[in-house]
């Protein structure tokens, strides 16, 4: 996996870009006539890129180490990239998005990758979008037919050498080259990058091609997750009247909120600690109720370790896989709404 390289090379690229942009802002007066749109002076904006000489622009726009167009799973990467992201795959989402966008905004190092890249491109792109939306349907159509990989840019550059000297952003072959359509394309590529990431996130989307269908899948997935929440909360609500909730609270939070199973090792600790409270005969009773449930391993505590290892290997969500008789659903399968509902009916 290439997860080691991207976080390192992106700051390097960012440093290069910033170095290149420092002299460029001095020459941005030249680009002022063309690149008017966003705040030109604001370091690292789209219009500052326009002021760059041709070769530097190409260098900046091409991804440093051309990443393979096919996205591997977003997440494998390094715990080193861990400075508390907004959501787990955040730094790498932004890395990917930045790499796939038309221009590479000067993104500082990975700890705060998020704020600088989206606002400048968003500002420039929005400015361009507002003007372009009413005008650029045709060019959008043309652009949609071309590919969207950054590697096409050199080919486009060869065909577009006859443009006026101060437009230096590479457009693809046969495309309109005004700043509006470029901003449009940048925005579109940003959206496409995010769609790619969403496709990875939502199971079953990678086979589907086409934005509408992928969006369908995403909507279905979100709705199914929300329905699961509702179902689970109904389940909780159904059980609750018979439970003294304060007592349950203490049961759940005995280990400082570390509910068993969040961490395999901790899960074992919790088992061994809390079950003496409940009584060993209760554990046996439990085993008769649920065979594969993680609590059910308690009758053979010496085997718990091996069970955890065996289970922990292939089953990240331990709970969901361990009790088909009760739950019967799986995070990876989306079509399982019926079974929980029927089970609820039978149990109630």
């Amino acid at each position: 996996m290439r997860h080691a390289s991207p976080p390192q090379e992106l700051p390097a690229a960012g440093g290069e870009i910033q170095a290149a942009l420092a002299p460029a802002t001095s020459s941005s007066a030249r680009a002022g006539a063309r690149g008017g749109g966003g705040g030109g002076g604001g370091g690292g904006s789209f219009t500052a890129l326009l002021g760059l000489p041709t070769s530097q622009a190409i260098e900046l726009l091409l991804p440093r180490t051309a990443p393979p167009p096919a996205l591997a799973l977003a997440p494998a990467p390094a715990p080193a990239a861990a400075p508390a992201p907004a959501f787990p795959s955040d730094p790498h989402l932004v890395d990917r998005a930045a790499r796939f966008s038309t221009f590479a905004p000067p993104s500082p190092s990975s700890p705060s990758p998020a704020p600088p890249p989206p606002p400048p491109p968003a500002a420039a792109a929005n400015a361009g979008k507002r003007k372009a939306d009413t005008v650029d349907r045709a060019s959008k159509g043309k652009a949609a037919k071309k590919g969207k990989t950054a590697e096409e840019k050199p080919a486009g550059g060869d065909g577009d050498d006859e443009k006026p000297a101060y437009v230096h952003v590479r457009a693809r072959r046969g495309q309109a080259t005004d700043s509006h359509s470029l901003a449009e394309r940048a925005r579109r590529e940003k959206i496409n990058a995010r769609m790619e990431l969403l496709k990875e996130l939502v199971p079953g989307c990678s086979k589907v091609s086409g934005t509408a269908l992928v969006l369908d899948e995403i909507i279905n997935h979100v709705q199914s997750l929300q329905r699961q929440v509702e179902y689970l909360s109904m389940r909780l609500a159904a059980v609750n009247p018979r439970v003294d909730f304060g007592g349950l609270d203490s049961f759940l939070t005995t280990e400082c909120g570390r509910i068993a199973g969040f961490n395999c090792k901790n899960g074992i600790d919790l088992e061994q600690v809390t079950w003496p409270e409940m009584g060993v005969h209760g554990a046996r009773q439990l085993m008769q109720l649920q065979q594969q449930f993680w609590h059910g391993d308690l009758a053979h505590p010496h085997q718990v370790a091996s069970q955890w290892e065996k289970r922990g290997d292939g089953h990240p969500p331990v709970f969901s896989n361990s009790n088909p008789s009760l739950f019967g659903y799986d995070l990876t399968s989306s079509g399982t709404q019926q079974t929980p509902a029927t089970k609820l009916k039978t149990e109630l």
Partner: protein
Amino acid sequence: MRGPNNAASSSTSKGGGAMAAFKQDLLRNLLLGLRARTAEAACPFDAMSLQERKRAVKCSADVAMAAAAPRRASATGGRARWPKAILAAAAAASSSSHSPSGTCKVRKSACKCKRVARRRVDAKRIRGYAAASCDVARRLVRRRTMALRKVIPGGNAAMDDAALLRETMDYVVHLRAQVDVLRRISAAVQISTSLRDPSQSMAQL
């Protein structure tokens, strides 16, 4: 392998550490919220109907998720909007009593219907000149985007598509974690009730 690898989504293994902390926060918030709700509720837990209880649990779960989420986001620039939307909706619902929450929902869906209807009128007008395939595709995508906005909390705010997709990603991840936590809680509750009753029956034996 062992270790904190039970991430909410099966694809993010490195995010397991972050998600575990989020789940713990969520759990704590949920328990606090439920306990507060039962303590302060006008009607005790037993007296509420199943629907009301379900709604209370779900609402507190959502609020717990929304409250636990920004702990990560504020560290790196907090751009997720859906937590604020959930909290705002919940605050609006709880500040007044239960019935206005129903009307709030109705009002929201009315606005959505209006917007959808307006779009449909435009589409019919435009359909006169050209049904190019790209236009059709674009219309479909736009409809799906609006549908997605309805589903994601806070999606109706003026956000462009890119921000909406980012919100969606964030929301999906947290939603998965919430489902996971709720599943474990309900399993634990089940265990505790099953232990309670059989142990009593066994004591009687």
